[in-house]
C-alpha cells in the first residue's frame, strides 16, 4: 500500500509542513556538500596564503574562469560532445558484444572455461597498455580511441555477464527447460530477462572503465578533439587551471551519470523486476 504521509516528525515544534520540508532539504544539502565545501575552503586557504605558487596550484577562481572561458568560445562544449559521443558509442558496442558473448558462451561450459580465464587475465592488464597496438592497427586517431574504449568496456562487462548467468536460480532454469524452452527461445525469454538486475551493476562498472580507457587514450593520442585533448593541451602549455578545470568537469559528468542516469535505471529495474517491495 502506498502512502503519501511524511515520516513522523520528532520534536518539530512547527507543524508547518513547508518549513519542515525546507529544513530537510537544507539538511540533505549539508550532508551532501560539507566535504566539497571543506576541500574548497582548504584550496582557497592554500592558494590565498601563497603556500603553493599559482603556477603549481591555481586558485578555484582561476579554474572557474578557465572553465567559463572554455565554454564561452564553445571549445570545451564541442570537446565534451566529442568525448561523450565516443564514450556512448564505445560503451554501447562493448556492452552489446560482452552480453552476447557472455550469454551465448556462459551456457556452454567448455566455451566459457576457455574464454573466462583469458578475459580475467586481460582484466589485470590496464586497457591503455593496448593503445600502441590500437594505433598501429587503426591509425593515429579516433578509431584507435574508440577501439580502446570498446575493449575497456568489454572486459568487465563480460565477467559480470558470466556471473549473472551463473546466479540464475537453478529452479528457474529447470522450470524453463521442463516447459520446453530451448536454444534462442530459452535465452531470449528466460536467460536474458533473468540476468538484467545483475547486469545493471556491470553497466555501471563498465561505464567507469570505459571513461578511464577513453580519457587515457585521448590524452595520449594528443590532438584528439575530446576533453582528454583539452587536458593534454593544458599540460603542453602549462595551463594547470585548464588541467584542473577538465578534471572537475569530468567529475561533474560522472556525478550526473551516477546519480541521474544509473540511479534511475537501477530504481526502474528494481521496480520492474519486483526486487523492492512497494513502500
Amino acid at each position, binding site marked *: 500500500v502506498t502512502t503519501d504521509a511524511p515520516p513522523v516528525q520528532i520534536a518539530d515544534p512547527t507543524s508547518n509542513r513547508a518549513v519542515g520540508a525546507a529544513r530537510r532539504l537544507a539538511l540533505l544539502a549539508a550532508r551532501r556538500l560539507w566535504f566539497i565545501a571543506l576541500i574548497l575552503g582548504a584550496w582557497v586557504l592554500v592558494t590565498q596564503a601563497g603556500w603553493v605558487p599559482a603556477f603549481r596550484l591555481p586558485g578555484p577562481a582561476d579554474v572557474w574562469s578557465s572553465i567559463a572561458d572554455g565554454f564561452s568560445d564553445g571549445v570545451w562544449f564541442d570537446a565534451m560532445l566529442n568525448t561523450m559521443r565516443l564514450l556512448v558509442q564505445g560503451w554501447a558496442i562493448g556492452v552489446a558484444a560482452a552480453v552476447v558473448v557472455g550469454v551465448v558462451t556462459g551456457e556452454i561450459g567448455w566455451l566459457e572455461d576457455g574464454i573466462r580465464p583469458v578475459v580475467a587475465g586481460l582484466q589485470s592488464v590496464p586497457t591503455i597498455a593496448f593503445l600502441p597496438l590500437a594505433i598501429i592497427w587503426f591509425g593515429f586517431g579516433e578509431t584507435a580511441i574508440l577501439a580502446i574504449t570498446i575493449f575497456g568496456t568489454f572486459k568487465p562487462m563480460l565477467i559480470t555477464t558470466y556471473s549473472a548467468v551463473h546466479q540464475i536460480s537453478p529452479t528457474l532454469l529447470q522450470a524453463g527447460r521442463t516447459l520446453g524452452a530451448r536454444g534462442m527461445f530459452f535465452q531470449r525469454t528466460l536467460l536474458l530477462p533473468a540476468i538484467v538486475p545483475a547486469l545493471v551493476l556491470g553497466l555501471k562498472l563498465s561505464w567507469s572503465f570505459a571513461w578511464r580507457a577513453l580519457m587515457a587514450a585521448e590524452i595520449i593520442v594528443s590532438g584528439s578533439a575530446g576533453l582528454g585533448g583539452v587536458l593534454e*593541451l593544458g*599540460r603542453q602549455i602549462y*595551463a594547470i587551471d585548464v588541467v584542473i578545470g577538465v578534471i572537475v568537469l569530468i567529475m561533474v559528468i560522472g556525478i550526473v551519470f551516477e546519480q541521474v542516469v544509473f540511479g534511475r535505471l537501477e530504481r526502474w529495474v528494481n521496480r520492474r523486476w519486483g526486487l523492492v517491495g512497494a513502500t
Partner: protein
Amino acid sequence: LARRSAAAGFLAALALIVAGCGGGDDGTLKVGYFPNITHGPAILAKEEGILARVLEGEKVEWVRFLSGPEAITAVLAGTIDATYTGPGPVITAASHAPGQITVLAGAAHAGAVMVARPGSGIRSVADLAGKRVAVPSFGNTQDLTLRDDLAGVGLRATTQGGTVRVVPVENQELQAALENDVIDAAVAPEPWGSRLLDAEAAELVLDADQIMGGNYPTTVLVAGADLLRDRPDLARALVSANAEAVALAAKNPELVGQRFNEIVVAGGGNPLKDEILRSAIARTLPNTSVPPDSIERMIAAAEAAGYLRNTVRPADVLP
C-alpha cells in the same frame, strides 16, 4: 603485544619509504637537453666536457628530454635547474608561470624545415588550406613558426576558425604518420626533417632559411627561478660554457655530427648517415643571439592561438 610491534614496524617501514621519496638535493647542477641536431651546442657542452670544466669541480648531471613542454615542466617542478629548449615553450611558460623561467642565452637558429607527404599536392604554405600539419607539440617553436607562416598567407588553424588542422606528433612518429596518411605535412626540427627527406617519406616545402628568414632562435638555454636566486654563479657558468660550445659548434660542425651519432649509438639507436647529418647541420646555425623581432612574432602567434593567459612581453623571453 606482537600485533602492536608489527604495527610499529609497518609504520617505521612506511616512514622510511616516505623519507626516501624526498629528493636528495646534493647540489648537483641538473641540465636538460634533447638528442637533436638543433641542440648541437648542448651536445658539445656535455660530450666535450665544456660545462664540467667551466663549473670547476661542481657536479653536473645532464638529463635527456624529447620535447620542450616536458623539459620546461621539469624546471617548473624543480626536477632540473636549467635546460636547453625552444623559445616556444618559454613563451607559454612566461604566460602561465610568470617569472619562473629565464632565458640565459641563445644556442642555435633555424634548424627546422616544412615538409609534405609526396602526392599531397602541397608545394607552398598556401596549399596547406584544409590539410593536417604536424608539429612536435602545442605551443612549441615549430608550432609557433607554422602559425606565423600560415598568418603570412591569410590561413589559420582550425582552433582559430581556420581550415588548417595542427596536430601534435612526436618527431620519431613522423615518418609512420606521413606514410599512413595520418598527416599531410609537418614542421620538423633537425635531424628529423633531413631524415624524412632522405627516406623520401616527404618532400621539401620550406627550407630552414625560408621559415622566418632563418633568423629566429630554435634552441635557447633557460634557467629556473631557484637557480638564479640561489646559485647565480652556476647560471653564469652555464652562460659562459654555452658561449664556448656555440663557438665550437660553429667552428667545427663535423664534431657536432660525430658526438650526436655517439649519443644515438649509446642510446641503442642506429647512427645517422653522413648525408643526413651534413644537411641537418647545415640547416642549423649555432648562435648565442635571440633576435627580438622573431620573439615578437612568436608571441603574436601564441597569443592568436589562445595559448597565453597573462600578457607576455618580448623582454620576458629575451636574455
